[in-house]
């Protein structure tokens, strides 16, 4: 991530810009894919009770591909912008590809320095998607959800 590219001096001169960048605020104000799917194949509501962040992810999956995705939620700019960015990213990807996404992949996508205290906010969207897919898999197989 780009944190290593910053020198201490630059941070002091321009401290505000590394977290609340325009595109983050833009995704927060006008989130992409915000809404509901009428008949989602996978759906899950995730929350961070400690912050009150809440995200419901709905996926439309066919032939192993995420054809459609929508989310609703409320919470901080980081959690909601993260969900907006993530939904853009996973649309059209195979379930397998989405399941392989790591927290670092999402943090790269968000592209800002996230302090440890805010990691839960940033990662809630991916966590919720993972739960939705695991629920779907367990229903289809009648098996226990995998470690995804």
């Amino acid at each position, binding site marked *: 991530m780009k944190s290593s590219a910053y020198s201490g001096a630059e*941070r*002091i001169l321009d401290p*505000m810009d590394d*977290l609340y960048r325009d595109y983050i*605020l833009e995704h927060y104000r006008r989130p992409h894919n915000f809404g509901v799917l009428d008949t989602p194949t996978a759906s899950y509501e995730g929350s961070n009770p400690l*912050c*009150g962040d*809440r995200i419901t992810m709905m996926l439309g999956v066919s032939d192993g591909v995420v054809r459609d995705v929508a989310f609703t939620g409320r919470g901080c*700019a980081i959690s909601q912008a993260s969900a907006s960015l993530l939904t853009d990213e996973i649309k059209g990807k195979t379930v397998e590809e989405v399941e392989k996404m790591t927290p670092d992949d999402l943090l790269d996508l968000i592209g800002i320095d996230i302090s440890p205290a*805010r990691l839960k906010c940033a990662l809630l969207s991916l966590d919720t998607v993972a739960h939705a897919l695991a629920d779907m898999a367990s229903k289809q197989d009648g098996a226990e959800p995998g470690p995804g």
Partner: protein
Amino acid sequence: MADTATHAAESSPAPAMTHATHAATPAASPSASARPAPARIDPYRLRTDFPILATANRFGKPLIYLDSAATSLKPRAVIDAVDAYNAEYSSNIHRGIYEIAERATAAYEAARASIARLINAREAAEIVFVRNATEAINLVAYSWGRRNIGRGDTIVLTEMEHHANLVPWQVLVQEKDGDLEFVPITDDGLLQLEVYEALLHLRPKLVAFTHVSNMLGTINPVRELTEMAHAAGALVLIDGAQAVPHAPVDVQAIGADFYVFSGHKMLGPTGSGALWGRRELLEAMPPFMAGGDMIREVHLRRSDWNEIPYKFEAGTPDISAQIGMGAAAEYLMGIGLDGVQAHEQELTRYAMETLRREVPGVEIYGPEAEARGGVVSFNLPGIHPHDVAQILDRSGICIRAGHHCTMPLHERFDLAATARASFNVYSIPGEIDALAVGLREVVRIFGR
């Protein structure tokens, strides 16, 4: 002693907490003797007692600490007391027959006496040392609760309780098949006393409530609530974590049965706290934890319990933290809690006025300044408190953002979270001005 306290309370010009508590007996500390009582405190002078206030954040901004309701900063006197134990007489208490061990025992028991004096307990033996207010409540719930709460018994709480004064009772009534009832609050954040009165007709065994709300700042009329509960035959536990650091508290005048508070919110170290209970209640209660120090005689198959308070203090405690808590009690009594209360009330009024004037759209929760302690919870429209706190952090401003361990209270107001500024003896108006500037910056960033 009690007469003096009662007289002082009745004759004082009715600042916020006098209907709930009595003025403490005059502090005996030499540093207070030069001041007229009730002395106005000088927060600018006191600030030099807090080394952390001379520090700066990663951007070189000085620390503006507005999260004292979470934990307070520590004055040099407390830091030195902790250091002295570790550097000069580190040894176990109540055991050693040598000089430093005797010094440790004496310091530990002197701290207990200081804390007893701080809340005007009848005797130091009624002060049980615990890690924090949460542990004190758990102690009562396990020890008193498991012996006295049975099937169908009711405990009355309020909607504004910290999780610490909620969850232990949930666990207890689930185990014993008892019931919980809750006093609701008004939109202004005050207890609905007529509902409280009605709930007392259920003949609860225990009523437990907070003295000062850590989210709304509401100062509850603890003496009145206690009298009503006693008239209905209930015992009373009061969570004083947000009261003891900020105003004179007199447990005898309040008349409660149990009163709990944390050391770290009253300028003391983390890991220190106190349960005050009436002697006859504590004596009748079984031990909470078993082990060393809480016994008089141990045989292989049975033991006799020690006297109070040691019966409840199994194992080696956090000795230095309790000694530090005693130093904090002396520090507070030295500067005078009447003055602390007046200062923080003035500051709270200033904060509410300033934020409402300077920050467009700010919504402040809870009662007006005259009915609240030094806590101001608020929201900016459309901006999550975590984002507010994160942006303020860049300017060195520390506030709390979240539900402040009061999820049911946030649900009551249909809030996911709030931002909270809270004050202590070292807080000054300039910090509130900085908060207002910071909040305007938050609004600017989110509005761009």
